[in-house]
Each structure stands twice: as C-alpha cells, then as structure tokens.
C-alpha cells in the first residue's frame, strides 16, 4: 500500500492525486484521440457513450452527490434537445448559442422542479420528478407549433462556427470535447465549497443545515446544474439521433439513466462513465448475443443427439427473439446490482484495487454491509 504525503497546499489543491494518476489520465486522453483510428466501425456507438456519459455526470451530481433522486431526467434531456433544435432551425441562431440556450432553459426548468423539492424528501421527490417528466412528455406532444408534435422534428447536422461537424469522426470529437469540459467543470465544482455542501446535504440534511449550509440554495443549485448538463447533452443527443419525437424521452429513458448511475456506482464520477459505457453498449451486446446464444445452446445440447441440438437451438432462438426481453434484462441487471453490489462497477473496481494494494492482508469484512433495522422517517 502506498501512502501519499502531501507537503504543500498546492499539492492538496491539485485535481490529480499524484503524478502517476495524472499520467494515466493523459494516456487515457491520447487513447481517446487515437480511438477513431483504432475502431472506426464503433465510432457512432462511442459518441453515444460520450453523450450518455454527460447524462450520467448530470444525474451523478444530483443523485450520487446531492442525494436527490430524479426519475425524470429524460424530460430535461428532451427540453434541452427541443430548445436547441428550435433555436438553431426555427430561430436561425448560431449553434453554440443554441447549446447555451438549451442549458439555460433546462436550468430554469430544473429550478422550477427543484423549488417544490425543498419541501420534500426521499421518495416524494422521485415521484414529483416522475410526474414532471410525464407532464413534459405530454407538452412535447401537444405543443406542435414548436415541437412538431407526434410527427417529430428532423435535425440537421451540426455546423459550429461555420465548420461542418456532421461526419462520424468530427461528431465524435465534438462529443469528446463536451464530455471533457463537463467532467472538468463537475470535478472542480465537486471539490469546491458548492460540491462539499451538496455532499453534506446527501449525508445528512439536518447536520448540513446546522453547519450553515443553506438547503434551499444548494438543493436548487444542484438541480439547476444537473439540468444544465442534461441540456447540453440533449443538444448533442438531438444531433446524434437526427430526429426528435416525444416518445423518445419516456420514463424508460429516465430509468436507463438511473440504471447508469447505479450500475456505475453512486457517488463517483468514474461510476458515471462506467455506467455510460455499460448502458450504451448493452443493446449492442444484446443484439450480438441474440445471434450467438442459440448457437451455443445448440452446441451444448448436441452431445445428446443431433435432433436435440437443433431443437434446443430453435427453442432458445425463439426465446431470445421475443421483443419484451430487453427491458426485462435491464431490470434484472438493476436488481442484481442493488442486491449484490450496491456500490456498482466502480465499487468493485475499488475492491480489486484494494485487494492488490494490501495484498496478503485484504479483509472481506472491510466492505461488509452492516445489518440495518428499518430507519424510520416518520418519527415525530
């Protein structure tokens, strides 16, 4: 195990823990730059991963760091996407102004949702955000003048400062730039007093309040910041999918975002990215597995005779081609993660790290969950 001795305040203020960590991140950055050369076929998926990463970042700030669980984040994404497209196409504003406008509008709507949140805790807030998302979805359907209603709204390729960025590679770098900017901003915000106040609110509202954290200000600001990030992600998302319709921004998408932060690991920025990779690439993996799994099952059964092999192949093939399977799989993954690895992929990664750094002395009990009785919130 390696201890880092801090010898100056400058060292304490640095973004990275030490030189080694910085070098890893620099390596990661160059890896990302080189990615278009390495896997050109999956570039479109990667830009979706980056957009989801931005969404994950947004929800991580709110749910993972401030402890306010939103079940309606897809609504913010929708507001951002529609605002951006309306500003750029219908009003003819420059691209970057459209993104800024999307951020501002979503931030305002975030504040609007956040204000009632001041009086609610826990699950009430989730329900309120859910209601908000459903209302927004209806608004997007009905306000045809702006949103195009159920007919949808086509989206042109992005043109930034007169530069056409519609190609796969250019769009990849655009998303990457946004993601890096968002991560840098969020990372810095989280170690500033604002972020500390958010974490304090998450851990105990009452304790935070008695330490002088203004709950109203910080809860609303968390909502506003999270929504603004979502707005930027929405603008990119609009270009990514190329066609906006209200039924994209459903509750299911919100749940996917939550799945992202839970699977990634609540309360860590790394978790947002792990989760984004997971959620964005899972459908790709599932569609590949659809073809592969029946073959495997058939091969496994083939020692029992040729007819058994082909029968199993057909049965499994029919089963995996059922349309309702995918959301169920998402649900199953969610349930398994909450039951067995509540800290998500990042938590597992930390455990593995700790195992090797303390090698012969690792104790499983370090991470054992305490037995808990019901923690009542109804005390008078």
């Amino acid at each position: 195990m390696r201890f880092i001795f801090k010898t100056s305040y400058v060292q304490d203020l640095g973004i990275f823990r030490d030189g080694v960590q910085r070098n890893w991140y620099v390596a990661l950055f160059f890896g990302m730059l080189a990615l278009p050369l390495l896997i050109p076929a999956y570039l479109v998926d990667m830009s979706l991963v980056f957009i989801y990463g931005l969404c994950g970042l947004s929800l991580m700030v709110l749910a993972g760091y401030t402890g306010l669980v939103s079940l309606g984040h897809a609504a913010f994404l929708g507001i951002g996407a529609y605002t951006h497209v309306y500003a750029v196409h219908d009003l003819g504003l420059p691209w970057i102004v459209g993104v800024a406008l999307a951020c501002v509008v979503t931030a305002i709507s975030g504040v609007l949702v956040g204000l009632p949140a001041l009086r609610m805790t826990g699950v009430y807030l989730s329900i309120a955000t859910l209601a908000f998302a459903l209302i927004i979805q209806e608004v997007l359907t009905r306000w045809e003048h702006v949103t195009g209603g159920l007919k949808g709204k086509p989206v042109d390729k992005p043109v930034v400062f007169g530069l056409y960025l519609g190609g796969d590679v250019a769009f990849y770098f655009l998303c990457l730039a946004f993601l890096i900017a968002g991560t840098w901003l969020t990372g810095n915000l989280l170690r500033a007093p604002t972020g500390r106040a958010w974490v304090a609110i998450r851990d105990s509202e009452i304790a935070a309040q008695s330490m002088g954290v203004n709950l109203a200000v910080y809860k609303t600001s968390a909502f506003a910041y999270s929504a603004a990030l979502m707005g930027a992600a929405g603008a990119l998302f609009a270009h990514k999918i190329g066609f906006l319709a209200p039924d994209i921004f459903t509750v299911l998408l919100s749940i996917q975002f939550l799945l992202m932060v839970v699977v990634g690991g609540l309360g860590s920025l790394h978790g947002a990215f792990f989760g984004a990779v997971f959620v964005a690439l899972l459908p790709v993996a599932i569609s590949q597995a659809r073809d592969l799994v029946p073959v495997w099952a058939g091969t496994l059964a083939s020692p029992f005779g040729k007819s058994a092999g082909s029968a199993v192949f057909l049965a499994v093939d029919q089963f995996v081609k059922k349309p309702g399977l995918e959301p169920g799989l998402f649900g199953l993954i969610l349930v398994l993660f909450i039951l067995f690895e509540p800290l998500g992929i990042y938590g597992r990664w930390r455990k593995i790290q700790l195992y090797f750094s303390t090698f012969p002395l690792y104790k499983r009990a370090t991470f054992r969950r305490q037995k808990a009785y019901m923690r009542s919130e109804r005390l008078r």
Partner: protein
Amino acid sequence: MLNGLAVGCIYGLVALGFVLIYKATELVNFAQGDLLMLGAFTCYMFVVWYGVGYWTALALAVALVGVFGAALDATILRRVIGQPQFSVVMLTIGLGAIFRSFASIAWGSEIYTLPTPFSARATRLAGVTVSHEYLSIIVGTVLLCALLYAFFTFTRVGLAMQAASQNQLAAYYMGIPVKLMFSLIWAISAGVAAIAGVLLAPVSLIDINLGFIGLKAFAAAVLGGFGSIPGALVGGITIGLIELFSGAYLPQGFKDVAAYVVLLVVLAVRPQGIFGSIARKKV
C-alpha cells in the same frame, strides 16, 4: 360521474397497496402497477385459456399473486430494509420491468378483453344508465375496504401487523413474527392489486402496459397523505373525478396529465397530503 368514481376506485385500490406496504416497511413499491397487470393476466389466462369460471379464476388470481408478493418480500425485498430509499426505488422499478418483460413473453404483447358476468349489461338507476362493469368496481372496492378494515381491527393477525408497522423493534420484543407479518402485508397488498386488476380488466383492456396506472395511483396516494389508508381511497376517488372533469371541461390532453399536475401541486403546497401522517425527521 360514475365512470370517474369507478376509475377513482381503482386508483384508490392500487394506492391502498402502496400505503399498506409503505406503512409497514417504509418501502415504496414502484412495481405495484405491474402486480395489478399480473393479476389481470392471470385471471384472463384462467378464464379464457383454461375455461375456469370467473369467480374461481378471480380467487385463483388473487391467491397466486398474493403468494407471489409474499415470496417477493421473503426473497428480495427483505434484504433492502434499512438501506437508503433510493436503492428500494430502483429495486422495485427493476422488478416492475422484469414483470412486464415476463408478461410479454408469457402472454404476448397483444391486447386482450376479459369476459365477465358483468359485461355489456346495464341497469337504469334513478334515470341514469349504469353499466354493471363500473358498478362491479365500486361495489368490489367498498366490500374489499370493509373486509380489510375488519381484518386490521378485529383479528389478531391484523393487530399484529399494525404493531409491526408502528414499531418494528418493539413488535419483535412482544414476540410478533415481524418478518412473517411483512410478508403477509406484501401478500395482502399484492392481492389487492390483483383484485384491482381483475376489476379494471373489463373496462380498460388488458395489455402489458396496464401497470402504468400505478403512476396515477401514486398521485392518489400522495394526495391522500402517503401513510393513510382512508386517504388513499379518498385520494383515488378525487383523482378519478378530477380526470373525468378535466377531460370534459378542459382542452384535449389535459385529461392525461391532470393527475400529475395535481400531484405536483399537492407536493409543493402540502406535501403531507390531506390526511398527512408524516412529520419531518428530528434528531
């Protein structure tokens, strides 16, 4: 008017399920609507596929879904008691997704109608034509509520459940099998959801998205104050009526969101609901 009342009763019943579980275990079950869907499908399966009589099928569906609810509690949900609310919310959402997926694999994603003894019959009551389907919902709700009330006030098991939900630790000390009680409460609330599903089935058709009615039932539960059983019913009926009137008097589209608007307003203005029983946590 009667339609609104009937739909409101359904909301009330689903909300009742939320409230029962919440009062007992402080878990909010986002999968309640999907339990309703399972109940409706099970009943449909017995009636149409196996040709069982309506009443037997109803009893079978309620029993099956009730047992399923208890098993769910015993195997999965018991583990998350005492964990943060967030993980419970996510867990039940995940379970709901699994149920929907299961239903679409087991019964297909077509839309079914459930034939009942009440179908397409109506009585004239004080000059108003009342269809039996709606009447059955209202009568069923009233009966069920009376039954539940009697159960919770007059039987030993019911009292034990109340004790377990009021103070878990004290109930343990008094020798009440708290875990069993919680499983039973889950069974009851799943059974109530199944009844609601079967009652709803003739009015709205059965498909895998039937469970989304649970979202509106949330509005009902919140409106009534999340910890209050009469509140859930009153809230449900209020939401049903509000939906009816906003469909009649407000522009198109308001009907679908009316419940949520009410929900948001209630949460912003009076988060404890009409019959609020929830106070702020003190140190």
